[in-house]
């Protein structure tokens, strides 16, 4: 199932700089997108979401951008902190549905 793709398996960023995590999707029926953060041996923790009627949503250090025409979303973390080091999953849901479709995840390492 390749409907949601995170093409970068890993990303390394210096503390204080911006982290940009990318996600692409193929299903035009998706209208709600979420980012989750996951530490080893824990469940996914919700970070931020965006509806397809918006192109940006911001919550503190986290901002999600949605480009519907390109079927692309990105998560910006600024400034990045060592505690942000985790696996980040992009997930999508289609209109009227209740099933999340996940990407493969990107491992973010923030170096101090």
């Amino acid at each position, binding site marked *: 199932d390749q409907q949601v793709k995170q093409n970068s398996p890993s990303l390394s960023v210096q503390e204080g700089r911006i982290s940009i995590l990318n996600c692409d999707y193929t299903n035009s029926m998706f209208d709600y997108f979420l980012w989750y953060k996951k530490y080893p041996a824990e469940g996914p923790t919700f970070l931020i979401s965006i509806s397809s009627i918006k192109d940006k949503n911001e919550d503190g250090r986290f901002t999600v951008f949605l480009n519907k025409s390109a079927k692309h979303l990105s998560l910006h973390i600024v400034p990045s902190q060592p505690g942000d080091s985790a696996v980040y999953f992009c997930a999508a849901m289609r209109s009227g549905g209740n099933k*999340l479709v996940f990407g493969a995840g990107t491992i973010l390492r923030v170096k101090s």
Partner: protein
Amino acid sequence: EPEVTQTPSHQVTQMGQEVILRCVPISNHLYFYWYRQILGQKVEFLVSFYNNEISEKSEIFDDQFSVERPDGSNFTLKIRSTKLEDSAMYFCASSERLDQETQYFGPGTRLLVL
């Protein structure tokens, strides 16, 4: 802050045995889900449950799987006869509403089938 809890955290079982994984969703949530993540693979949807019925299930969720809400707080996933390929992390999630609604995940149960 309310959270989804799951028990046990780890379960080891022999192939062919039945296992029951337990979850306590967030108390005012009405929609419940099970997902799994096989090692090295994506998190995959198994089933969603609302008003004491399955509302959607994936092709993974075959006759060996069942879900139940036996009381007002617990939500269980039963695997009747486990196979080696059922070894995975199983995550329970819940949401307050359905459409465009955040699902909150529990910490997971690591199931190992020998």
